[in-house]
């Protein structure tokens, strides 16, 4: 139960890092959840995060699973609120201001300036995930295949991830 304040603090902090997408916060998420607080193993986090990519809605709902894992239903609720409420309030407040600032000369500078940095953060998140997920050649082949298919077609990624589960069942069953 005394994990709740810690959960709230950690996930409120992580929410502020999600510029450009949830993936931008992934390196910090891994650091906090695995290294600092030992709530999950690195493999556990990679697995849960990846399952979360299939869920509908915001692509960081893995936080609900982590909260449940640490402190049950209440933990899940606390983490979801801590992770979404701060940025919802910021966007609500700044969003209104931002629309009014249409003629402010720095507005475009901020949008254009933060865009490449946020892409860089998302790329760093992808690299962190890859380090945890691509532990052998079959995994690299699956990732590369999904990557190329998605860049060349409009297939729903959820089917490809389900396909990954089937291939994983066949390819990795004997590994563990």
């Amino acid at each position, binding site marked *: 139960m005394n994990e709740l304040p810690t959960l709230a603090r950690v996930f409120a902090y992580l*929410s502020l*890092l999600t*510029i450009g*997408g*949830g*993936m931008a916060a992934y*390196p910090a998420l891994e650091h906090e959840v695995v290294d600092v607080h030992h709530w999950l193993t690195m*493999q556990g986090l990679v*697995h849960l995060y*990846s*399952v979360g990519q*299939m*869920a*509908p*809605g*915001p692509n960081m709902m893995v936080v609900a699973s982590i909260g*449940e*894992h640490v402190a049950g239903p209440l933990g*899940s609720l606390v983490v*979801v609120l801590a992770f*979404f409420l*701060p*940025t919802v309030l910021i*966007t609500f407040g*700044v*969003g*209104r201001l931002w*629309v009014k600032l249409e003629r402010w000369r*720095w507005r475009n*500078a*901020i949008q254009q*300036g933060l865009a*490449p*940095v*946020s*892409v*860089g*953060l*998302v*790329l*760093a998140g*992808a*690299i962190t995930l890859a380090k945890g997920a*691509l532990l052998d050649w*079959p*995994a*690299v082949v*699956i*990732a590369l295949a*999904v990557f190329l298919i*998605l*860049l060349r077609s409009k297939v*729903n990624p959820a089917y*490809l*991830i389900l396909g*990954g589960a089937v291939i*994983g*069942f066949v390819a*990795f069953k004997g590994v*563990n």
Partner: protein
Amino acid sequence: MSSPAPGPAPEQVTVPQIFRAFLLIGATSFGGGVVAYLRSSLVEKHRWIDDRTFVEFLAIGQTLPGLNATNMSVLVGDRLRGAVGAAVAVIGMCLPGALLMFAAGVAFGIHGNRTVVVAMLHGVAAAATGLVFALTVQIGKKALGGIADLVFVLGTAAAVSLFHVKVFHALLVLGAISIWWHRPRADGTAAG
């Protein structure tokens, strides 16, 4: 231009209508790409906002912290019905995925260490990694204006991935440098 809109005009949209629309998106946008679902619902189906507003909201949402899905919900909900509209839009967007992932957390606690499950999750993680890199390329293509931007992308990624700079610090320092690089110039069109 004067053709009548099939959906209700924005000032007539009710709070329950907003909640239902976002709940539907929150429940059906499997496989990520929630922005595409948002556009098809809000711009094409309901015609609550036009494409120009949608793109502008998207730019704002991507600049501010927070996920695209929830930031878009806040901005559109606020535009349609103020604070209450924003609140029900976010709740509708988050509820289905949160319940599903809560259940996933329970299932993971019970079955997460079984050999068969671990094998399947290895495959899922590999596929999700491919997905995340594809998304990175897709947003990168849209966001990048030139060589300088590419340098900022790679510099930020290298700082975090290679040199283990904290995400927060990388954001502050490289964000400030990049904004300064894109600063309004004296001959800029926005002058005056």
